[in-house]
């Protein structure tokens, strides 16, 4: 085989590998859509989005996605209210205050938080955080979104801090010099000049953290409960979209049944939300990277 032909075949193989990623997305969308479309032959789309109960596994069947979405939202909000303030404070400190040595030691340490398997975090939430919180909040149920949300928040801190710190470091030093030259302190320069200048990069970091929290499965499966309900109360058991999918997969649901299809329609909802968020953050990222080139 002559050289040119060989090179071409290699090119095709390599291209095929890259193309596999497109196939993956097509596969995901096809699988989720096809099962969901069959689902919607039996359940009206309107009741799907407006019914306030989700009871596909019970005798009295309701197929409203709202309780699962609210469960996901509740744990996510709790997680972000921990991860975003803490993550941003860490990012500003590392970018504007800390020495290079400190930064190079701390960054990998923080990444450990993201490396721990989520099933371990779930164990923590159930076995330590909930009993601990029950000392202060006696009405806290054994399964609840508060513990799950808090632990998820801790896990997500490095997502917020690492990406935000990158965005802050990318702000040109000439802006800092201008601010210091006017007699501003480090605190004023960091918060009034550098942080606003890095706003789109920080937004990207937060959106990615948000997407991560929405898609989180094991922490909520273990610690948040299996009771879908439309509530804003963090002290009671709920169920998230991801938790529901796990619940069904662990059980004995026959293929081809409507209960089986509910995991795909739940998955489609999840995919849709995270896909939207990821695209927004991707385009935001392109925009802010242009700014400083």
């Amino acid at each position, binding site marked *: 085989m002559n*050289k040119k032909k060989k*090179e071409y075949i290699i*090119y095709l*193989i*390599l291209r095929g*590998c*890259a*193309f596999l*990623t*497109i196939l*993956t*997305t097509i596969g*995901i969308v096809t*699988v*989720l859509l096809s099962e969901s479309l069959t689902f919607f032959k039996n359940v009206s789309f309107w009741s799907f989005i407006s019914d306030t109960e989700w009871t596909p596994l019970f005798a009295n069947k309701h197929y409203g996605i709202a309780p699962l979405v609210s469960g996901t939202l509740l744990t996510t909000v709790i997680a972000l209210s921990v991860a975003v303030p*803490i993550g941003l*404070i*860490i990012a*500003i*400190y590392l970018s504007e*205050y800390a020495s290079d040595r400190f930064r190079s030691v*701390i960054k990998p*340490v*923080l990444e*450990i938080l993201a*490396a*721990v*398997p*989520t*099933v*371990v975090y*779930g*164990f*923590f939430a159930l076995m*330590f955080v909930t009993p601990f919180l029950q000392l202060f909040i006696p009405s806290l149920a054994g399964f609840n979104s508060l513990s799950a949300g808090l632990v998820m928040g*801790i896990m997500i*801190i490095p997502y917020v801090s690492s990406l935000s710190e990158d965005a802050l470091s990318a702000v040109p030093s000439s802006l800092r010099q201008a601010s210091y030259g006017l007699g501003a302190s480090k605190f004023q320069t960091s918060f009034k000049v550098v942080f606003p200048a890095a706003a789109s990069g920080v937004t990207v970091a937060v959106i990615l953290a948000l*997407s991560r929290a*929405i*898609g*989180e*499965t*094991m922490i909520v499966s*273990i610690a948040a409960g299996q009771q879908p309900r439309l509530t804003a109360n963090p002290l009671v058991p709920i169920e998230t979209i*991801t938790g529901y*999918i*796990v619940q069904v*997969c*662990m059980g004995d649901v026959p293929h081809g049944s409507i209960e089986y299809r509910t*995991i*795909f329609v739940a*998955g489609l909802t*999840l*995919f849709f939300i*995270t*896909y939207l*968020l*990821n*695209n927004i953050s*991707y385009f935001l990222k392109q925009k802010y990277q242009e700014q400083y080139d």
Partner: protein
Amino acid sequence: MIKRNKFKEKIFPPLALFCTFLGVILLLIFLVNILIDGLSRIDADFITSLPSRKAEKAGILTAWTGSLWIMIMTALISIPIGVCAGIYMEEYSKKSKINTLIEINIANLAGVPSIIYGLLGLEVFGRLLGLGNTILAGSFTLSLLILPIIIVATRESIKAVPKSIKDASYALGATKWETITNHVLPYSVGGILTGVILSISRAIGETAPLIAIGALAYVPFIAQSPFDEFTVLPIQIFNWTTRPQHAFLVNAAAAIIVLLLITFVLNGIAVYLRNKWKMNLRY
């Protein structure tokens, strides 16, 4: 009228230090508690016993052998494909609509929740290809999951190769592929390896996608081939965590210690490699 909020300024550095260490300290507290609960349970029996309905007799043999199977199979599948895709994107693809699409798509895939990959695996590998809930189905599923990570790591490592080296190779008449195999890959192998180890470490800790394809929670036999059913450490932990009896929770703690040990060792190797090759890769 001049006022400055000196309090806010003074309190920020100590507050920031507190935040920085908060997560790590909490994790340390968790870990110490886990060690207290589970360390004593770990002995040769625990590691070599099959799971059992009796907590004291149950062990993690099938779980860690299952994890090993999954790790090896996933590595065998995902590394060649991921590295090849990365090479294509860095060395071969020119600016075109299709190639931009591939790029955006990979960025998106990296953000898809892992359980969605599980649903994909359930239908395509489990049902369509008839692999059911075997190791093979699990490995294919996890391979798709970690593929974006390996691709990004490969791309970043290849980007760092100086153009001068490639120019020298081409100038001597080498083909593109010869240049890649003789110069680009050897130069970037450190970064690629780091990314691979990190993604394998991630794969070992994954639970949701494997649950979705139907990996069992109770597997009283060791898998002998990729076509066998299986379980993995995280699923075993999940299963024991959901049991009310305290003895099973002790087992879970012990299994967690084993899983964390593996995870930290793998991550430690990757960080060591990353520092050694002094590359600043982000994945």
